[in-house]
């Protein structure tokens, strides 16, 4: 309720200021009001209004530039605004902060010099920084082949293909698998890249209640019985798309019953392990290992290298036929430039460490540290009375803040106490469910986390975030 009031207040204020600005012709957005002669304005008024009067007010929470590796501590470049938050300028000052925002789950950004450097640098002797061409046309290097074979072995799949962008992996693989006449049954909280992929594919899309296998079953039963809309012909195929860890919710997929229901109804399973691969499961093999699901029952296994592996890009692992199909018919492979051989080498090295093939127990130690750190912080936040979302063992710990003004205050108060936290509002979350998201890393020491918990407690008190105690959060 208060969240609604805040929005109404801010929107009214914004319109009032626009009006005053137009009447007196004095506003920092004056240029925006005067569209170029003869052109339609580039933005519709509300989009523009949202950017001007809502986003700009609290934009200091985002796009904070940093000048160090994304390890447990980062150097953030301080910014200031001279025009009432319309733009932010960088200063020469930097500030060392505890990093609770990066997806550096296994801490490879902290000890990169000691762990991955020796595997990555030699590649530059023979291969360029980028291949500058797609895979088929001499863009495949020995570095790519090694990575694909290793990922396939790690996941127990026949083959694997790697992409140079995580978002593009979903956005191009789904259209390569689906066409008109295909039904995609998608979890209602799936990531934007999956939604993009489904829309681009032109497939029919049904959503089921988040993580609810029973609802999935009823959606599947109805869809198969009813067939395609209007023509009533049977579906060509049905693809169930779920994620391993939902990055804005911190929840782990309830994979076992979902896979069981999908198999029972002859639907194919597409699992997006963008956040879970390398971070979940005893040996880092992701949601399948954690939920006790055989990877053979998951038809398409997708994941990214940006998070636990400290690289970039994504992969699809599956049967030989599937991978060959993607290699010849998926836009992400046929058109996009190949992944940088340097990044491929980074992921190979990280993966070897996780699998223990480097002959040390660094990988196992990292996985254990990540789990213990995550559960420590989650328990403490729950004790503080914050509305914590998600499951134990998940390194993503979101806590609801709701009110946009509190988002801004929370971010600033954490910043002042030397903590880099991520706050997420519209459009990544529903308008009314703004939240903070704390990402835990194996690179955090216990002292780091104790400091974080102590300071978060202060901020929770100050910003009234103890929603677990009462609705006002006081």
């Amino acid at each position, binding site marked *: 309720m208060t969240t609604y009031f805040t929005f109404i207040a801010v929107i009214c204020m914004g319109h009032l200021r626009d009006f005053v600005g137009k009447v007196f012709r004095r506003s920092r957005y004056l240029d925006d009001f005067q569209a170029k002669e003869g052109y339609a304005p580039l933005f519709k008024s509300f989009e523009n209004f949202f950017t001007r009067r809502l986003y700009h007010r609290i934009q200091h929470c985002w796009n904070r530039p940093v000048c160090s590796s994304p390890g447990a501590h980062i150097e953030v470049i301080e910014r200031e605004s001279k025009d009432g938050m319309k733009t932010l300028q960088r200063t020469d000052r930097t500030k060392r902060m505890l990093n609770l925002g990066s997806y550096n789950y296994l801490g490879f950004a902290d000890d990169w010099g000691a762990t991955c450097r020796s595997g990555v640098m030699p590649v530059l002797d023979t291969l360029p920084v980028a291949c500058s061409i797609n895979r088929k046309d*001499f863009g*495949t290097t*020995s570095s790519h082949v090694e990575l694909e074979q290793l990922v396939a072995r790690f996941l127990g799949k026949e083959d694997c293909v790697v992409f140079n962008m995580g*978002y593009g992996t979903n956005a191009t693989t789904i259209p390569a698998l689906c066409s008109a006449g295909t039904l995609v049954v998608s979890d209602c909280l799936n990531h934007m890249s999956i939604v993009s992929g489904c829309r681009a594919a032109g497939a029919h899309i049904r959503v089921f209640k988040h993580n609810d296998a029973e609802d999935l079953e009823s959606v599947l039963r109805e869809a198969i019985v009813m067939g395609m809309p209007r023509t009533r012909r049977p579906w060509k195929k049905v693809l169930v798309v779920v994620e391993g860890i939902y990055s804005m919710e911190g929840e782990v997929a309830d994979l076992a019953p979902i896979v069981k229901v999908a198999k029972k109804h002859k639907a194919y399973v597409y699992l997006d392990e963008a956040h879970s691969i390398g971070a979940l499961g005893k040996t880092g093999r992701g949601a399948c290992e954690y939920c006790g699901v055989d990877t053979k029952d998951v038809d398409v296994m997708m994941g990214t290298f940006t998070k636990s592996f400290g690289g970039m890009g994504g992969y699809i692992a599956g049967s030989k*036929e599937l991978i060959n199909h993607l290699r010849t018919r998926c836009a992400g492979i046929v058109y*996009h*430039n190949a992944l940088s051989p340097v990044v491929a080498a980074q992921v190979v090295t990280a993966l070897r460490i996780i699998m223990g093939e480097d002959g040390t127990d660094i990988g196992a130690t990292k996985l254990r540290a990540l789990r213990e750190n995550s559960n420590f912080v989650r328990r403490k936040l729950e004790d503080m009375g914050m509305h914590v979302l998600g499951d134990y063992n998940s390194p993503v710990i979101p806590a609801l803040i709701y009110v946009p003004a509190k988002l801004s205050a929370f971010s600033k108060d954490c910043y002042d106490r030397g903590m880099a936290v991520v706050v997420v509002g519209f459009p990544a979350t529903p308008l009314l469910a703004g939240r903070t998201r704390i990402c835990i890393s194996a690179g955090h020491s216990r002292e780091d986390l104790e400091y974080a918990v102590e300071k978060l407690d202060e901020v929770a008190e100050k910003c009234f975030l103890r929603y677990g105690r009462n609705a006002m959060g006081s």
Partner: protein
Amino acid sequence: MYREWWLNLVREDPGHVVVETALIAFIVYILFFKKTLNPKDLSKPNLSSREIDEIIDDWKPEPLVPPLTEEETSEAESMPVVQEFSGPYLRVEGIEKPLLNMANFDFLGMGQREELKQAAVQALDKYGCGSCGPRGFYGTIDVHTKGVEENVQTGINLSRSTVRTFKHNDMDDLERVLKEIAAEDKKVKRNVLDQRRFIVVEGLYRNYGDLCPLPRLLELKVVDHQRLSAAGYCYSAAAPPFTSAAASAALGMLRAEPNLVAALRTNAEFLHGAVGAIPGLKVTSCALSPIVHVALAGEQEAAAVRLVLQGIAKRCAEGGVALTTSTYIPSEKFPPPPTIRITTNALHTREQLEQAVRVLAEATAAALVPVEGL
């Protein structure tokens, strides 16, 4: 008491009572009975759970992916694997002799320059490899902001805009489309300013090797909207800092060595002329483009041409030159005509280009003999 009141009402204004009763009855009808008349529900069969199970048992979904042709399988499984880039040459697995690289888009030959590698090494040592976060969330590293491609058509589809296409690079056709839109505006009395319109073109078309006539088009800049609304920016992790550092270094080198661009242009023009002189081939790209597209002279069916061109590319590889045929995916709306794609870069010497043209001419002559014999 109510009875009296009612009777009084009926007596005073019977028409009113009739109308109001009818209205109330209609509301009740909408609330409680209309649902069962919903056409969607009517068509929904009332099946028992066992009947549903039987339908599901009978349903045979298609395989996840359609079977590949033998040709496609071999294409997927035998992609050339490059082991080493050395200058303008590539060492490819299974081929002893290094191939002259006339395939990739590193037009200025920057990818392997020592300066660039040093910039990458320094950035790697300072920042590690990955950025571990989208730009909005501590993924903006200082090096990103010093330097700045994607599938345009998919992007247009996803924006849910009304799309009009004009013939490739044909400004008269564009003018025709724009006039049509203006006529439509008049018809539906739509104010020109109510609809935002974008003309979307590329600078250098990879599949055609020609340039867009930029002087006749406009440039628009869209930075803050991009930051907030572009999915790739909001939801996708930022590029690794070392790639940005390398891109900045490349831009610096480009500024410092304008002769690179001149060398590229000379090479492009030479290649364009020399390839065009090969009998049986015709160059379809423009003379300035470092991507040279070559089609078979004469009208033939696309699938047959593609096979011939692939044969030529294969023979060229055997002759020591790596070049490629244009590729597209089956769902492409406007597939480009089949061509051989030859790229040149600033590293190529005149001798190397002459050598490549000689190999291409021999391969073409060998490939065209059986076709003409048919």
